[in-house]
C-alpha cells in the first residue's frame, strides 16, 4: 500500500508511453484524419462545382436549342419567301419570254408578208409586161419603158 520505488518505475513507464505516443502515434493518425477531412471537403466542393456547371451547361444547351429553333424557323420562312419570289420571278420571265416570242413571231409574219408582197409585185409586174407585150403585139424595148414599168410597179406596191 505504501508509496515506494515502484512510483519511479511507473513515472518512467508513463513518460516513455507519452513520448512514444507524441512521436509515433498521434501525428500520423492526426495527419491522415486531416487529409481525409480535406479530401472530403474537396470532394464536396467539386461535387457542388460540378452540379453548378451542369446547371450552367443545361441552361446553355436550352438557350442554344431555342436559338437553333429560331434560326430554323427563320430559314424556313426565308426559304418560303424566296420560293415565292422565285415563282413570281419565273412567272415574270415566262411572260416576258412569251411576249418576246410573240413579238418575234409578229415580226416574222410581217417580214413574210413583205416578202410575199414583193414577190407578188414582181410577178404582177412581169405578168403586166407579158400582158402588155401580148396586147401590143409588138416588140417593146424593155429598157426604154423601164421607167413606166417601175412607176407601175410602185403603184402596185401601194396596193
Amino acid at each position, binding site marked *: 500500500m*505504501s*508509496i515506494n520505488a*515502484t512510483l519511479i*518505475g511507473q513515472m518512467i*513507464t508513463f513518460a516513455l508511453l507519452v513520448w512514444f*505516443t507524441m512521436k509515433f502515434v498521434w501525428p500520423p*493518425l492526426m495527419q491522415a484524419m486531416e*487529409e481525409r477531412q480535406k*479530401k472530403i471537403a474537396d470532394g464536396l466542393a467539386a461535387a457542388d462545382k460540378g452540379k453548378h456547371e451542369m446547371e450552367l451547361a443545361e441552361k446553355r444547351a436550352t438557350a442554344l436549342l431555342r436559338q437553333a429553333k429560331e434560326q430554323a424557323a427563320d430559314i424556313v420562312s426565308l426559304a418560303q419567301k424566296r420560293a415565292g419570289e422565285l415563282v413570281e420571278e419565273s412567272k415574270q420571265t415566262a411572260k416576258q419570254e412569251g411576249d418576246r416570242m410573240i413579238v418575234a413571231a409578229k415580226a416574222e409574219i410581217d417580214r413574210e408578208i413583205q416578202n410575199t408582197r414583193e414577190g407578188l409585185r414582181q410577178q404582177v409586174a412581169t405578168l403586166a409586161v407579158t400582158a402588155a407585150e401580148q396586147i401590143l403585139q409588138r416588140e417593146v424595148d424593155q429598157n426604154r419603158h423601164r421607167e413606166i414599168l417601175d412607176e407601175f410597179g410602185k403603184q402596185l406596191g401601194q396596193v
Partner: protein
Amino acid sequence: MATEAHETGGATGYIVHHLTPLSVGEGFWTFHLDTLFFSAFLGFVFLIVFRMAALRVVTGVPGTLQNFAEMLVEFVDGQVKDAFHGKSAVIAPLSLSIFVWIWLMNFMDLIPVDLFPLIATSFGLEYLRVVPSTDLNATFGMSIAVFFLILFYSIKVKGPIGFAREMLLSPFGKWMIPFNLLLKLVEEFARPVSLALRLFGNMYAGELIFILIALLPWFIQPVLSFPWAVFHILIITLQAFIFMVLTIVYLSLAHEDH
C-alpha cells in the same frame, strides 16, 4: 478458490492475499513487480496497437483498426479542443496515452480475480495483483508526472516572475503573501493527490468488491458479479475519462493567466 482460501487463512486471509503485491526490495526501494509488469505490458499493448494503426494509416477508406484508433484520437482531440485553447503538441497525445493506458489498467479489474493469481501460483509466485491502478504508485506515478507538466507549463507560459507573482499575490493581494502562498500550495498539491486518489480509490474499491463476491458461495457469485462487472465497464471508462479531462483542464489552466 474461495473455499481453499477459507481453509488457509479465512476470508481476511483471502482478501489480504489478493491485495498484496508481488514485491522485491526493502523499505522505499521496494518494487511492485506485478504493477510494473502489467502496466508496462498494457502500455506496450497500447503502443503496438496504435503504432500499427499509425503505420497502416490511409487517407482513403480506413480499416477496422484505423477506424478504432481514429475514433479514440478524434474523441480525445475533441476533448482537448473543448478545454484547451492554446497550441500544444504535447497535451493531446498525453491525453490519449492517459486515457487508453488507464482504461487498459482498469480493464484488468474485469478479469476474474482468481485467474492470474492461480496461474502465478503454478509458477511459484506467491502474490499477484493484476490491476495496476489499484496500486497507489501507479496512480501517483501518472498524477505526479502531470503535476510536473503543470509546473513546467505554468513557468514556461507565465515566466518565472509571472509564476511567482501568481503564487504570492493571488487571490488576496500583497498584504497576505504567506496566506496566499499557503492557499496556492494547497491548490497545486491537491491536484495530483486528488487525481491519484480518485482513480486509486475507485479501482481499489471495485476490486475489493469483486474479491468479496468471490468469497460468496458459487451459485450467488454470478448474480452479483455480473451486474457489478457490467457496472464496472462504465466505472473504468469513466475513471479513465475523468483523469484525462482533469489533466487537460489543469494543463489549460497552467496556460492561462488568472
